[in-house]
């Protein structure tokens, strides 16, 4: 793994993400319960689990988008407030109004707003960075389009480009594969691998058990509590899946099949 951005002297720092005892409760019912998680640098991790397992909640709580009831989250040893500049976030596509009067390149440049800080406006440099990111997701020709004139997959890739320009070290993506076409799915996978090759760490909320083994090298099985977390080869086992999904056999068979083809 290329590692020229920080010194590897401290083993603690090599952990891209450390979550300790994280609990989030809506009203009195816990959405996630006492989650402990450690993630080394440079891996692609899927968070999988049944509906209502708290997958998105885990991401949002890590980024302090919703209040945590208890627990700490550290990115390379730093709390979120100090890690903002190197943590990227791709929200669910449906979380924004795509009729908003703005263009593709504008949306991509929003990824740079954090680096610009208050008051400073994006300029030519930001536009160039945005165009470069759009080329990576093969949307350069669409830069000037209004965002509602994109297909669902193109919208997802726009969001991805926005995360790319952030040039973060740790990425969180909330269901990037939801309802996208095959072209976009391949594009996203290519980008994920590219990110991993550059030493980035990516956490993806994922819903398709079939592709876990193919796309990811690390997996967290979540059902309010963490069932298991670790490398796919040792963690993505039928036994763990059964624990995560309860008696839903069809999922188990799919998962087992995916495991077989993935290995």
């Amino acid at each position: 793994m290329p590692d020229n951005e920080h010194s590897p002297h401290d083993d603690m720092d090599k952990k891209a993400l450390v979550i300790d005892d994280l609990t989030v409760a809506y009203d009195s019912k816990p959405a996630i319960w006492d989650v402990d998680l450690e993630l080394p640098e440079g891996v692609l991790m899927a968070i999988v689990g049944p509906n209502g397992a708290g997958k998105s909640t885990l991401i949002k709580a890590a980024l302090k988008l919703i209040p945590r009831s208890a627990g700490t989250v550290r990115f390379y040893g730093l709390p979120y407030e100090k890690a903002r500049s190197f943590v990227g976030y791709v929200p669910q596509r449906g979380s924004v109004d795509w009729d908003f009067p703005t263009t593709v390149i504008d949306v991509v440049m929003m990824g740079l707003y954090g680096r610009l800080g208050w008051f400073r406006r994006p300029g030519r440099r930001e536009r160039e960075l945005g165009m470069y990111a759009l080329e990576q997701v093969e949307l350069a020709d669409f830069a000037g389009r209004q965002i509602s004139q994109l297909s669902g997959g193109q919208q997802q890739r726009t969001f991805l480009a926005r995360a790319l320009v952030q040039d973060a070290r740790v990425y969180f993506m909330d269901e990037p594969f939801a309802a996208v076409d095959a072209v976009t799915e391949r594009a996203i996978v290519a980008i994920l691998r590219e990110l991993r090759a550059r030493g980035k760490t990516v956490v993806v909320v994922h819903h398709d058990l079939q592709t876990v083994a193919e796309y990811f090298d690390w997996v967290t099985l979540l059902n309010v509590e963490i069932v298991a977390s670790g490398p796919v080869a040792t963690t993505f086992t039928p036994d763990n899946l059964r624990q995560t999904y309860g008696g839903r056999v069809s999922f188990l068979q799919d998962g087992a099949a995916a495991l077989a083809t993935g290995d």
Partner: protein
Amino acid sequence: MFQLEQWFIQFLLYFVSPEAVNSFLRDPRHTAIIIGTLIAVSGALLGSFLLLRGMALTSDAISHTVLLGIVVAFLVLLAVQGQAPDLSSPWLILGAAAAGVATVILTEALHRSGLVKQDAALGLAFPLLFALAVILIARKVENVHLDVDAVMMGEIGLAWANSNSHCLENCESVSITPDDPRAQINRQCTNCRTLGISPRDEGAQFADICTNCGVYSPGQAWQAGLIATQPVLLFWPKSITVLALITLLTIGFVGLFYKELKLSTFDPALAAALGFRPALLNYALMVVVSLVVVGAFDAVGSILVIAFFIIPPAAAYLLTDRLSWMLLLSAVIGAVGVYFGYDLARGRFLWLEMGGLLAGLNRLFGLGLSEQWNSSISASMVLMIFFLFLVAWVFSPRYGLVSTLVRRAAQRRHFADQVVMGHIYHHQGQVAEHEELIILTLHHHFRWSPRKMARVLARLRSSYLVRFEKGLVLLTPQGEARVHRFRQTQLGRNGQSMAQNLP
């Protein structure tokens, strides 16, 4: 406020003569249009963001609840100062801003309780605060100029009557005492009342008193003949200063936080993740909205002010795909509506005389309508802005009603063409060709009317995509190429299954 006004006027006088300013502002039309434009511009800038945030009705709620802030601040000042405060006091404006924020906080608290939905929360919060304000007004400040009617409707036409006069030259004020040579002296009987003596009585005693002592402002002094040179006075409607300040503040706020407002409106989650405090920005936005609403109170009242916030952005939204253009366009639309709205109130719709129209109607139908057209200025401005919205709604190049209909019709035609060509493509050269492709019966296969099929075939034939041969309709080579292209680009990987569904 007076001091500020003077600075502003000094600045203005670098560019225009005081006579020009005076004669311009003395026309109520100009004053009303300036005030309306200021409201329209600041309303449009803020309203664009409210509209995009799905908070259009929040401005309506705030325009009512600021009344509570004003009344509470009024009562506090009354208690502290012991006298009724000036209605343009900055404290009242601050009270209004606080009420605006309180509305939003209360709404969110109700919503977050999980027991009421967002719109219902708004509907709960704002009548509560408004009702409190109305009760306070009725119970406490009945004899003060703060009645509910004035608050609801406003009267922009009166703005020019409420002016400060600023003196520019020969500004000596004159104070007259009995010793002053200019003092006019009357003799007055000093003992008539107490002793029952009338001034004509012998024993009446007289004192000299000054009939015109006191302080005269330059204008009064000149009119009273106390000074020889006429002062140069400038009459300046008070609301212009307040509204100009508020508009500058609005422009400054939107200009300074444009990027942040844009991001937190489009994607609040990312804004929060990047550390831009969207909640704080939201409250700041509400403060500025409250200020504009208060500033607009006298002029348009609390009911119509929402029109200045929402209609121009709604029109601009249909005309552009860029947020910056939307802000600019909505400001322009608001201003244009204000300009022509004033004339509408005075009986002119754009360049049409309404009086003449009414007279014509009277003559034709004997309706007996009053031919005097004189109506509420603010309401007419709103009508005019709405008219502009209507124009955008119907004629917007991309999203307007007309272009949508035209586009849909074109799509329907295009699809009909493709369906017919697809059908021919499938049956051409097959055994069933002679049943499936007969020109005169082709429409049966589609359950179309013969006329529709005739139109489609005529269109295809005139663009050389099909040819007629022995009573059959067949594809030309161009037509076949067109079908191939359509199948590749439109049907994609579902091509097979869709092709099976074709007739």
